[in-house]
């Protein structure tokens, strides 16, 4: 999952990015509205966190412009003022939720998870596909009740595929959503991750949850139960 953080206070920006990276997200950040708007329009994010009081272009204007460009990923606004006038105008501009500063990181994590889950159409945090269960809140995967040991890259790859179950996801799309811009886009890396995931999820080769579509990408094949 790739997130965008637009926050002008450098310390908060940094700690937000750090925290989200620890949660296994790929994070781009911008320190003002102009840069933020550029990034928001250029890249396919899964969620954006926007501070309302931004230099250059203020948060509400930025959200409006992003929504005008038909970008539909969820937007979480941060506001220091906390009055309803601000919250309502942010939500009316196209944001999906708000968080009043200061906030606990746990609360941020819960909101971000909920918004991503909601945007992919999954209401419950636990997604079950036969014996495989993906808990998007705890970021764990279990098979037949046994919690798997996955690296965060492995988990992220799986979560992205699961959120887009049934659709073919190209390697390029995967790298865009899962890794930093300066990541070495060697498609072999993706293949290695997919290989490891298959082994961990389906050691006996019975379920075949991830199908390779030759020349196109990968597809999560299981249906939700």
């Amino acid at each position, binding site marked *: 999952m790739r997130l965008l953080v637009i926050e002008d206070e450098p310390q908060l920006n940094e700690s937000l990015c750090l925290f989200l990276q620890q949660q296994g997200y790929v994070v781009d950040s911008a320190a003002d509205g102009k840069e933020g708007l550029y990034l928001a329009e250029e890249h396919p994010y899964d969620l954006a966190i926007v501070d309302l009081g931004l230099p250059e272009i203020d948060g509400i204007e930025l959200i409006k412009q992003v929504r005008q460009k038909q970008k539909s990923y969820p937007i979480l606004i941060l506001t220091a003022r906390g009055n309803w006038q601000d919250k309502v105008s942010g939500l009316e501009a196209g944001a*999906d939720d708000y968080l009043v500063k200061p906030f606990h990181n746990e609360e941020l994590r819960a909101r971000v998870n909920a918004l991503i889950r909601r945007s992919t159409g999954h209401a419950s945090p636990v997604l079950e596909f036969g014996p495989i269960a993906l808990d998007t809140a705890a970021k764990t995967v279990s098979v037949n009740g046994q919690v798997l040991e996955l690296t965060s890259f492995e988990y992220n790859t799986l979560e992205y595929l699961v959120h887009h179950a049934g659709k073919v996801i190209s390697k390029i799309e995967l790298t865009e959503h899962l890794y930093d811009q300066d990541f070495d886009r060697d498609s072999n890396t993706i293949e290695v991750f997919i290989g490891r995931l298959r082994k961990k999820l389906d050691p006996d080769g019975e379920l075949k949850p991830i199908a390779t579509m030759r020349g196109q990408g990968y597809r999560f094949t299981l249906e939700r139960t």
Partner: protein
Amino acid sequence: MLALKKPRRPNWKFVKNFDSLSGRLIIASVLVLPIFVLMSGVALDRSFARSQEVAELERMRVQVYLLLGAAEIFDGQIWLPDQLQEPRFNQPESGLYARVTGNDQVLWQSPSALMTTFPESNASPLFTGQEIYWSTTVGDKAAKALSFDVAWDTEDGLEKNYRFEVYHDQTAVTAERASYQRQLWRWLGSMTILLIVIQWAIQLWGLRPLKGLADDLGKLHSGENLTLSENYPAEIKPVIQNLNEVLVAEREQRDRYRHTLGDLAHSLKTPLAVIRSNLSSGELQRSVVNEQITRMDDIVRHQLQRSVSQSGNSVKRQCDLKPIIERLLTALGKVYRDKNLTITTDLAEPCMMAGDESDFMEMLGNLLDNACKYTHQQVHVAAYEQAEELVINISDDGPGVPEHKRATILQRGARADTAQSGQGIGLAVVVDILSSYGGSLTVDESHFGGAEFTIELPIPSRA
């Protein structure tokens, strides 16, 4: 404080004078007074000329009558005495001349007219009792003439017509008029100047209270006085009184701010002290720090929202609460989309209330947010007018508020620093705002089985 921008003015001396009240009045009187003086001068001069004329005619008539009285008829001839009663008729070139004509012939002329040539006589036919008064010249000089026609019965029973004419030189009259005019304009001119000077003095005196006001304001600024003295003329007094009211309100506001600021600073000190002691005890407990930060955040938020709700109160406008409620519900529906809430409304149209829109937004936002947060599925909002009050009813089907807790959560002025953390400041803000509008908030059980919050706001009389 607003910095007022000084409007640009053309740098033109004449226009600049309009910046001063005194200047305006002086310019007005300098422009208007001469016109009045000129008009009254002309009127006086005219009426003087007129009365001169009337007097002249009257005098000449008297002369004619005297001549008529002195005239006698002998042998069909008109005869007048050698020495007339009026000495000027006897003295040559005296300026007063007379003659008698009949049948276009001069029958008699006064001794004063020996060396004088009369102008062409009026050739009009004679009518008995007819009087003609006209201007003419005798010699080279302007003169007035009066002719009077009479019919005389002679001894032999015949009737004879005669014309008596009196000529009077106007040199003296003209001189008199000129002297009058000179005097008149001299007086009027000096009166104009005097009036302008007096008016200027009156203005200085009349506008002096304004100067006093400026001094008073200066003292106010330097802190010597707290209010303006009300020792002003009746015209300025209402302004001063209003100004004083504003000053008092402003000072009270300032005191309140200072008070709030003091409260805020003090209430922040306790959590800071806890953190510091925790720090110096050697081992930092994350939970303690976290708790104190939450407490400080609550305090700051509470004061911020209070400041918003108190500052707006001075400006009251008619607001329709219906769109505010609808906007809030749309926004909250987005936030709580996961819960798939069933939100229903029953709002009077319109729900008018005088006040500040952001106050209502805060108040309703907090209540509606609570309802959406704690409800299971249903939220119902009703608004209607009842007995001079606007009633807003927010009910949900959540766990509700237990009876013994209802009084506590509504306590007014429960300061955030004394409130338990996590209890939330939303309701405290709602109660604060409501009390500033003289409204009330009650909690009950809703017909869904959850909580029901009811706001009652008195509607100010729409006078």
